[in-house]
C-alpha cells in the first residue's frame, strides 16, 4: 500500500466517524427520529473489509449501516437527508437510519432483523453463480446475530452451494446490553462458523492494516469459486447500542481500554511513521470532511418529506 492509498483509508474512516458525530448532534436536536445506531469505533472493520472489493461486488449489512454506505462511496448528503426522513434521501425518506440502500454503489441495505439479511446474501450468491459473474458478496452482522436460526440456515446453504459470500461478524462483545458470554455457549464466532466447513479468520477489527489483510484473503477465496469465508472482526463500539442507550452495562475502564485502541489516531500514527507524513495532510483531510459534512447537514435541512399523498408509492412495481 502506498501513502496515497493509506491516506484514502484514513479519509474514509474519518468521514464515517465524523458523520456519526453529526448524526448524534442532529438526533439530539430532534431532526432525526426513531432508532439511530452509530458505528463510532468500528470504522476499521468497514474500511478494511471493503478495501479489496471491486465496484461490482455487493455489500449488505444490519442496521448500524451509515458507515457501510459511506465507505462504499455513498453520498453523505443523501445519507443525512435519509436520516432526516426527507425525499432527497437515498431511500426517499421511506427507510431511515437502519435502511440505507444505493443500487449505484451496490450497497444493498441496511436491515433491522439482526441476521435477516444473511439468507438474502445467499440469494445474491446464487444469482452470481448462475450468471457466472466474478462478484462476491460481503455480509456484515454482529455477534448477537449468530444466535438467530436463520443465520445458521444461511451459513450452511452458502457453504453447501459454494457461494461467493464473505461473512463478516463484527464482534463488539455486546448485543444491546447482553454480552457475548451471556448469550453464546460458544463465544468464538469463528469456531461457530467452522462447523459449516469454511475458512474462518479472526481479525483485529481496530486495526485497518490487519483488517484489510485478512479480508484480502477471505475475498480471494470467495472469488475463486471455492465457497464462502468467514471473518470475525474483534472490535468495539464507542457509543451505546443506539442513541437511546446509555450503555451502563459496560465499565468505564473497559471503554477506556478500547478507546486507547482507537483505529483513527492509530492509523494516523502508523501512516505518519511508515510514510513520514506531517500533520498538515491529516489536517487537510479533517477540514475536507468537516466541509463535506457541513454541506450534508445543510442539504438535509433544506429538504422536505414526501407529501402524504405519496404514501402509497412503491408498494408494488
Amino acid at each position, binding site marked *: 500500500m502506498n501513502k496515497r492509498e493509506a491516506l484514502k483509508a484514513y479519509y474514509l474512516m474519518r468521514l464515517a466517524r465524523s458523520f456519526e458525530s453529526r448524526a448524534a448532534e442532529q438526533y439530539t436536536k430532534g431532526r432525526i427520529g426513531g432508532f439511530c445506531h452509530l458505528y463510532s469505533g468500528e470504522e476499521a472493520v468497514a474500511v478494511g473489509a471493503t478495501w479489496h472489493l471491486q465496484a461490482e461486488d455487493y455489500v449488505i449489512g444490519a442496521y448500524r449501516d451509515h458507515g457501510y454506505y459511506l465507505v462504499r462511496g455513498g453520498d453523505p448528503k443523501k445519507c443525512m437527508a435519509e436520516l432526516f426522513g426527507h425525499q432527497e434521501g437515498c431511500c426517499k425518506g421511506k427507510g431511515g437510519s437502519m435502511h440505507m440502500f444505493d443500487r449505484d454503489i451496490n450497497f444493498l441495505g*441496511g436491515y433491522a432483523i439482526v441476521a435477516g439479511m444473511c439468507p*438474502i446474501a445467499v440469494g445474491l450468491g446464487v444469482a452470481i453463480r448462475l450468471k457466472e459473474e466474478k462478484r462476491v458478496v460481503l455480509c456484515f452482522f454482529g455477534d448477537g446475530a449468530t444466535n438467530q436460526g436463520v443465520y445458521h440456515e444461511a451459513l450452511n446453504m452458502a457453504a453447501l452451494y459454494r457461494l461467493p459470500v464473505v461473512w463478516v461478524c463484527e464482534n463488539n462483545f455486546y448485543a444491546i446490553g447482553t454480552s457475548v458470554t451471556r448469550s453464546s455457549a460458544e463465544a468464538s464466532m469463528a469456531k461457530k462458523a467452522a462447523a459449516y466447513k469454511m475458512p474462518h479468520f479472526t481479525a483485529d477489527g481496530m486495526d485497518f492494516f490487519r483488517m484489510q489483510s485478512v479480508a484480502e484473503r477471505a475475498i480471494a477465496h470467495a472469488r475463486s469459486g471455492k465457497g464462502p469465508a468467514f471473518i470475525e472482526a474483534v472490535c468495539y463500539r464507542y457509543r451505546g447500542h443506539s442513541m437511546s442507550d446509555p450503555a451502563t452495562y459496560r465499565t468505564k475502564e473497559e471503554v477506556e481500554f478500547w478507546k486507547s485502541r482507537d483505529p483513527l489516531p492509530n492509523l494516523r500514527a502508523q501512516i505518519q511513521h511508515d510514510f513520514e507524513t506531517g500533520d498538515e495532510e491529516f489536517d487537510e483531510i479533517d477540514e475536507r470532511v468537516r466541509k463535506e459534512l457541513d454541506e450534508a447537514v445543510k442539504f438535509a435541512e433544506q429538504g422536505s418529506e414526501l407529501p402524504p399523498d405519496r404514501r402509497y408509492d412503491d*408498494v408494488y*412495481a
Partner: protein
Amino acid sequence: MPKMSYRDAINQALHEEMERDETVIVFGEDVAQYEGSFKVTRGLLQKFGPRRVFDTPISEAAIVGTATGAAMAGLRPVPELMTVNFAYLAMDQICNHLAVMRYMFGGQCTFPVTIRMPGGGGHQLGSQHSHSLEVHFVHTPGLKVVYPAWPEDAKALLKASIRDDNPVIFLEHEGLYNFEGEVPDGIEAARIGEAKVLRPGKDASIVAYGAMAHVALEAAALLAKEKIDAEVIDLRSLRPWDKQAVAESVARTHHAVIVEECPPMCGIAAEVAATLAEMVFDELDSPPARVSGADVPLPYARELEQACIPHAGNVVEAVRRSLNA
C-alpha cells in the same frame, strides 16, 4: 380441449415459463431430484439443469431469503415451500423482508418472486399440517396472493404470477392435485385480481376460492333441486381481489354467502363481508353470511376433521337462512 390434472397444469406452467425466461429458477425441499413431494416439479431438473433447479436443506426462512436476494440480483425465483404450514418458519422473511423491501428502499428494486405453497386440510394430516394460511399473506401490503381452484386457472395464474414483478404467494390445495379439468392449449397468462363466475344465478351469490369453490358448486347444484338459483363466484385472486365483480353480483342477487376453509376470525369471508357492507349495503336483503372452517386447530380423526371443514350441506343451509331472513 385437453384435460389435465391441477398438478400437471402447474407443472406445465413451470416448464413453459422456465423455457420462456432463462432467469426463472425453481428450488425448495425435494423439488429437484425427488421431483417434488407432490410431484409438481417433475421433469424440471432434467430439462433445465442443476443451476436453475435445485434442492435445499430444510431451511424455510433461508429458502425465502435466497429468493429475495436472487431477485434483487436479477433472477426470477419460484421457490417452493413444501406446504403452507411450513411458511410459519419463513414469516419474517416473507412479511418483514420480501414484502417491505421495495417500499422501504424507496423503489430501488423489484422482487419478482413467486412462492408456491400447497395447503388446506381434510386428509388426516393433523393440526400442524392442515392449515389454511391465506389471511396472513392477504393482510400484508407488498404481497399479492392467488389461489386457483381449477387446472386452467392454476396454469394461467402461475404464468401470470411468475411474470409479475412483485412477490406473489401462489397457494395450491393439496386435495386438488388429482382433480382433472380442461385446459385450453396455449393458454395465456391470466390477470391477477379477476374473479370468475362459475355458475350464473339470480337468488343468491356464493363466493368462494380454492377447494371451497368446488364445495360451492356442489351446494348450488343441491339448491337448484330446491328451485333456488345460486350464482357461484370463484375469487381466484385474494390480494388484490375482485371487489367489483362480487359487489355487482350481490347487487343483483341481494344475498351473499361466503365460503372459506380457514377459521372465521378475520378471515377472507370477513374481508368480503365488510367490503359488501361498504359497497352494496342498500342492496342486501340479509347480512352477508360466512361459512368457515371450525375455529380449531384441525384434529386427526377422520370424521371429526371432516366436521371442521365446510361441506355443501353447510353452504345450502346458509343460503336457505339468508333467503328466509
